[in-house]
């Protein structure tokens, strides 16, 4: 096993990896940008190294500086987390060239699955259902139109090098086609320096169901079941859960088998995710491979009991997986809410600033994966995800109740977060019923989401008035006659305990 591992990330995922390293008694080396000097991942690691200025391009994305640093400090491996360089084939290759283990799939696999058209081709060859449509780049308008008519409207225009929704366009009729293709090609060209586009059948109101896989370098590939990720806003996942309410036992087995096949077909080693779309008839289609640990990996950890980061480290060190497919069994139901520094009352506007106070939930079935702390200044440079809240229980209904309870215990003060949004989702009929698809949040939930709720204004008013009253007394202690620590008609304030308002009954 490794002796020292560099964690090439920040925030909650860096802390997640550092915890796994500590449990394995592996020394952890953090890197940080100038904006992250006070961040938790710096304090929780055994070592910390300044890598550059706040902008990601000058710090967390600097391939050469990070690999050089790993060599210099004697780190045998690098864990990329998610985001930043996690799916960058060039970074994986730079690690390979430098003789540092990249904790993830090979650069070859990352490059293969990163090209949507190549990935499609690979899956078709492996007999995995893909969304009907072209498996070749389309250049002129006639070709595009012929292909669209062959598939049948509605269709989806996609960029071969795609990602993050860029270059993607849903098209419902022939008339829109030519203009959309021009726009998509130009967008793809400027975003990815690769203007190849292709057409797929548009799956309407799909559910997004993904399978966690993990593979070692000895040829063992195991899937750990699915995650339901249909609660999205503008293609961003907000809530994930396992199991999915949409899957039957036999469908789960079929999709799991397809996920393992997909991993084998792409020569996958380490942890990864095979994303599928599920249409209204419960037909599934390969969507893409996420060649990294996902944000939502703890959902799978809670239902399977398997520590994915630990297994990532083990297989990267050349060990065999500690379990076979038959050893994997699922218990209960897990839900994750992504807590973002965004204001749900104001169109999910980012909210940065100083965290003045935090109270985190705890107790049975609750797991918090947080990257922040009281006194932390949430920087503007990075992802708004500041924490993940997870709840597990024997049944989905109980997991929802537990998540509601945990959300009610979670206060992050000083910035706005998506906690109130998640409370509303947990209360919503559609989420509770389990009957929703990826269009739900944008089309059904938001039009009726009132956002700003102040259900107890009288109680808040009483608190504000009492604090004001106490401050007034403090400012004029002589006039009122009773400062802190003095006795007054049976009421006593011990000097070490500051009491506002002076009306606390204390022990005599």
């Amino acid at each position, binding site marked *: 096993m490794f002796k020292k591992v560099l964690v090439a990330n920040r925030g909650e995922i860096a802390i997640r990896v550092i915890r796994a390293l500590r449990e394995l008694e592996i020394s952890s080396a953090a890197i940080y940008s100038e904006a992250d000097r006070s961040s938790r991942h710096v304090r929780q690691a055994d070592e910390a190294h300044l890598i550059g200025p706040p902008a990601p391009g000058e710090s967390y994305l600097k391939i050469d500086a990070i690999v050089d640093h790993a060599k210099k400090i004697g780190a045998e491996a690098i864990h990329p987390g998610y985001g930043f360089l996690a799916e960058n084939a060039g970074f994986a290759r730079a690690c390979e060239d430098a003789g540092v283990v990249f904790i993830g799939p090979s650069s070859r696999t990352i490059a293969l699955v990163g090209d949507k058209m190549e990935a499609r081709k690979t899956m078709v060859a492996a007999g995995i259902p893909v969304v009907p449509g072209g498996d070749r780049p389309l250049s002129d308008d006639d070709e595009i139109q012929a292909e669209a008519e062959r598939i049948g409207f509605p269709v989806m225009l996609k960029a071969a090098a795609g990602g993050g929704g860029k270059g993607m366009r849903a098209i419902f009729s022939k008339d829109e086609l030519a203009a959309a293709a021009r726009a998509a090609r130009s967008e793809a060209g400027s975003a990815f320096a690769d203007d190849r586009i292709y057409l797929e059948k548009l799956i309407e109101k799909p559910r997004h169901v993904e399978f966690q896989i993990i593979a070692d370098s000895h040829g063992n590939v195991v899937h750990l079941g699915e995650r339901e990720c249909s609660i999205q806003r503008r293609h961003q996942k907000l809530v994930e859960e396992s199991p999915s309410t949409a899957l039957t036992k036999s469908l789960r087995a079929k999709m799991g088998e397809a996920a393992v096949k997909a991993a084998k077909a792409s020569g996958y080693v380490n942890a990864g995710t095979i994303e599928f779309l599920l249409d209204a008839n419960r037909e599934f289609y390969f969507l893409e491979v996420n060649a990294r640990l996902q944000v939502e990996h703890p959902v799978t950890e809670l239902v399977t009991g398997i520590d994915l980061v630990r297994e990532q480290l083990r297989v990267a060190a050349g060990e065999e997986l500690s379990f076979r497919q038959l050893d994997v069994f699922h218990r209960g139901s897990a839900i994750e809410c992504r807590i973002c*520094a965004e204001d749900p009352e*104001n169109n999910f*506007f*980012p*909210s*940065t*600033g100083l965290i*003045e*106070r935090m*109270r985190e939930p705890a107790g049975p079935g609750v797991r918090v994966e947080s990257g922040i702390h009281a006194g932390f200044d949430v920087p*503007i*440079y*990075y*992802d*708004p995800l500041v924490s993940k809240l997870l709840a597990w229980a024997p049944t989905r209904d109980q997991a929802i109740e537990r998540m509601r309870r945990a*959300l*009610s215990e*979670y*206060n992050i*003060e*000083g910035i706005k977060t998506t*906690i*109130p949004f998640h*409370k509303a989702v947990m209360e919503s009929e559609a989420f509770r019923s389990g009957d929703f698809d990826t269009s739900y949040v944008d089309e059904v939930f938001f039009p009726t989401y009132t956002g700003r*709720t*102040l*259900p*107890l*204004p*009288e*109680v*808040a*008013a*009483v*608190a*504000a*008035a*009492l*604090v*004001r*009253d*106490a401050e*007034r007394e403090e400012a004029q202690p002589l006039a009122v006659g009773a400062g802190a620590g003095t006795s*007054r*008609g*049976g*009421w006593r304030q011990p000097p070490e*305990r*500051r*009491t*506002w*308002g*002076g*009306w*606390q*009954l204390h022990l005599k």
Partner: protein
Amino acid sequence: MKYQVEIADRKIELEVEKSDEGAKVTLGDETQPVDLVRIGRSPVYSLLLGDKSFEVSVHRKDRIYQIVLDGSTYDARVMDERALRLAAAGGGDEEVRGEVLRAPMPGIVVGIAVEVGGTVEPGEGVVTLEAMKMENELKSAGGGVVKEIKVEVGQGVTQGEDLVVIE
């Protein structure tokens, strides 16, 4: 002591009385015992109102008491008897004229959709700010005529910085 507390668009009148037996608060027709205790030196308080128990955090921002209660944030403006008398004697609030669009967070200005002298409708996008990997469109609340544009595209701004003045 009587207080008037403004929260959002509500004005809540209440009266706090203290005696040797503790404090009472009167809200509308109802008088209840009340007890507020600060937890250590933190911004957290335990509030007992009648039998009910609440945990509140109080952060003071200038003249506003920001109360966090059950996950919601209430911005409370507290006026005591004296302040209320003064306000009554001095006439109503000054008429607020015009609007200054301010940066709700630090970021980089990546777009300005208006020109000085142009007209802005309520809810119209005015400035686009980039922060946390996302572009965010800032909208005019009231609408009016653009009097001054204080920033330019590409400029970094801090939270609360004036961007555009609309009258």
